[in-house]
């Protein structure tokens, strides 16, 4: 029996009515930016939101079809595919699955630098006084491996962790043994200024598969200004350390992070150029965290968020220019936000998550066994504020850490979905919550959005990025996507005639 063919109208009748699906919006670049519950966005002409709310839109238009395809509305002619949308919402939170993945071990507070913004270091302490004991290390390792995560990262911090190299050497084999027993993957990173690194230490790291993360704030004058040390040669030491580490560990095993201080803010271009000169392919334009000594010495390290945002803007523009000229270098803050904006995924970066990464994604085990929700939480404790001290490895289990009052109080302020100002913000899916930051800067975990530095910074950066996205310059988008995927940009094939 022959079958009949039917025209489009039979399958796509212009519906008489439609219903809204949940979404948030803002005004940007002369248009309206709509963001659906899964973080997918659409630029629409001004007035569209009003039309949607009045349910008065031409259902036979391209705009209508676009809104339907991107889950802003649905009608009787087809399914809203809520389960598909729900899966996408869930995917945005895939960072929560599996429990805490990043475990920071503060093996010592001793350090021979005296950086203005540093939150914790003890320059003149004797060995042992502020070092992690083996008993504490054992308990912390057990606590780390108790996490349900299939893969965990052990990050050594301090002070300067290499000053307690013996503690590191104690911890690594124990951690590896326990990881093997529990069937977990274990990554190990050491955060060090490399000033006192030796070839022996590097050989040990190479043999154990340990990665190094160090600091490079920019060219010599800036780096040394930020990081005073006897001899005033922090920069030279850092470069020497980087080169030696690369030679022994391999280039991929050595990463550099910068810290932004007031002094940095006028030198975006020079800082980027320094990273390029040193063959780095990744740079993180991050703001200084307002904790610890930073608050005490605010008159030297304090700065307005506006200056940072200009610094970021200049830095990003220069980095894009460097990329266009053929040198591949990604900016990490941009990469994190673009991952949230452009891809179906959330981020693994603990400082830009909602629910906030504190405890859910990161735990800090201090030299004395105290467990903190984040590095910043520990820094607050250095100023005698133990609000975010979750417990102690000698007294608590994972369960009591997560169900104790400090944790529970913090969790209540950890979801930006339910924070005033965030709950109807268009950028909610891309932004985050940070109860520790708000507590430290504004006196309460929930924070006050209009005056929050966290909000100002993220909102402005996200707006900058949406401007770039909306412009849709082909080459710029290729570069940005290569940062997001980690793959090289595609090149044109030479034309044949």
């Amino acid at each position, binding site marked *: *029996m022959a*079958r009949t*063919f*039917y*025209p*489009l109208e*039979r*399958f*796509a*009748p212009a519906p008489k009515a439609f219903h809204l699906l949940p979404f948030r919006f803002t005004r940007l670049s002369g248009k309206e930016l709509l963001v659906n519950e899964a973080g*997918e966005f659409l630029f629409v002409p001004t007035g569209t939101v009003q039309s949607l709310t009045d349910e008065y839109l031409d259902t036979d238009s391209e705009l209508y*079809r*676009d809104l*339907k*395809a*991107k889950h802003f509305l649905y009608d009787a*002619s*087809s*399914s809203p*595919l809520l*389960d*598909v949308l729900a*899966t*996408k919402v869930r995917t945005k939170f895939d960072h929560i699955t599996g429990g805490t993945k990043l475990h920071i071990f503060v093996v010592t507070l001793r350090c021979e630098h005296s950086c203005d913004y540093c939150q914790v270091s003890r320059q003149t302490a004797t060995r042992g006084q502020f070092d992690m004991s083996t008993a504490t290390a054992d308990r912390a390792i057990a606590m780390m491996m108790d996490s349900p995560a299939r893969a965990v990262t052990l990050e050594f911090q301090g002070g300067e962790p290499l000053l307690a190299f013996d503690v590191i050497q104690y911890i690594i084999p124990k951690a590896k043994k326990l990881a093997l027993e529990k069937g977990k993957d274990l990554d190990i990173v050491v955060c060090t200024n490399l000033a006192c690194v030796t070839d022996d230490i590097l050989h040990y790291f190479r043999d154990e598969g340990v990665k190094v993360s160090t600091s490079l704030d920019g060219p010599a004058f800036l780096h040394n200004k930020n990081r005073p040390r006897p001899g005033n040669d922090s920069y030279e030491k850092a470069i020497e350390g980087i080169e030696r580490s690369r030679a022994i560990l391999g280039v991929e095993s050595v990463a550099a992070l910068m810290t932004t201080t007031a002094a940095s803010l006028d030198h975006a271009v020079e800082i980027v150029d320094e990273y390029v000169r040193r063959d780095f392919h990744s740079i993180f334009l991050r703001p200084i965290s307002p904790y610890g000594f930073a608050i005490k010495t605010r008159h030297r390290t304090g700065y307005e968020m506006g200056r940072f945002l200009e610094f970021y803007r200049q830095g990003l523009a220069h980095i894009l220019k460097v990329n266009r000229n053929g040198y591949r270098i990604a900016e990490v803050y941009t990469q994190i936000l673009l991952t949230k904006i452009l*891809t*179906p995924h959330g981020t693994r970066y603990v400082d830009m998550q909602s629910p906030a990464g504190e405890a859910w994604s990161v735990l800090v085990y201090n030299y004395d066994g105290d467990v903190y929700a984040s590095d910043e939480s520990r820094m607050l404790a250095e100023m005698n504020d133990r609000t975010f001290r979750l417990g102690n490895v000698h007294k608590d289990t994972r369960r009591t850490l997560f169900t104790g009052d400090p944790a529970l109080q913090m969790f209540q302020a950890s979801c930006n979905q339910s924070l005033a100002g965030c709950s109807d913000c268009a950028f909610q899916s891309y932004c985050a919550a940070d109860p520790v930051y708000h507590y430290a800067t504004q006196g309460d975990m929930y924070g006050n959005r209009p005056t929050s530095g966290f909000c100002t910074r993220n909102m402005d950066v996200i707006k900058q990025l949406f401007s770039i996205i909306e412009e849709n310059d082909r080459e710029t*988008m*290729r570069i940005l*996507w*290569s940062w997001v*995927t980690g*793959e090289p*940009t*595609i090149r*044109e*094939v*030479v*034309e*044949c*005639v």
Partner: protein
Amino acid sequence: MRLTTTGVARNFDTSIIGTITTADLPHDERTKRIRFIAPGDVLTDDAMAGYSALLCHDELARDPGVPYVHRLRESDHLRDGDIVVLEGRAALVRSLYRPYELHHHLFVTERCNSNCLMCSQPPKDRDDVEALTERNLELIRLIEPHPPYLTITGGEPTLLGDHLFRLISQLKMSMPETELHMLTNGRTFAWPEYARRFAELEHPKISLGIPLYADYAGAHDHVVQAKGAFDQTVTGFHQAARNGIRLEVRVVLHKLTIPRLAKLVDCIYRNLTFVEHIALMGLEYTGYTPRNIGELWIDPYDYQDVLEEAVEYLVVRNMTVSIYNHQLCVLKPSLWRYARKSISDWKTLYLPECETCSALPACGGLFQWAAKKHSEHIHTITYKKTI
């Protein structure tokens, strides 16, 4: 290359499937073999005994008392090793499998619950599943040597229900290293029970190729001529992915899919991020297509910008893309690296322009039926020599 021929059948009215041999075989190797007798050859009674059937181009002088088909209309397409099925009642000789080909298909039914405007295998509402399944099970057991790839196709294979699971299980047993690719509209996978049972087959090397033609239901349903198809297909993708089934999206490029192609690839990226591969395919002038050509035809040369944009969109997002059924001379050079030689050997046609074309070795050519309809812009490419 032909698939079917006819002749006069004797001594059987069922279907007999077997592998062709053009040479004499020892008696103990003759079961499941079909002895082909070439034009002009004459065989003794002993030489003809013991085979499943005989195929003779000429008239067999004497009835040897075994099933045979003689007086074949054509026979030059038959080769040693081909697997054929002889249909006694219809006196047909169908070639099911040719070892020397690059692309192999297992055809499982003519039934389909969609009715795509450009379907290359127009469906029939006749329940052929039982018969075809029995035939295919035998075919699978006969296939030698095992091919690296095999495509399961129809119609709509999932309409076989349990029979499909039997076929896949047989494939798993008989040729476990063969990579299977099943072309399906994906709609049945919307039922979680079905997706789960399919996954439970635990075939180690199977993926589904599922078409998607628009980013919203109305347009897709129109192309496939089935209301509700888009919703079921997208849900099917998700249920399959959840059960760990590997997936590919296919898009046929024509006048109804090109206008929103940019939005379709965005839809694929956002909703089907988990697919392994996206195949962008040229229109085949066969099946239903000639009837609907007015709605469908757009010269591939004219959509190159749209195609390039869509490919780039997916590639920067790290998705794997291939372009099928396009000639290199109509494709933008930036897209050549994505073009595959996808046309089955026996379907390939090359035009006069092709004979002196520098890109001929890399090009897939055209389909046989493209003689009737192809791009206005087929032309010879000459590489400039650098000195």
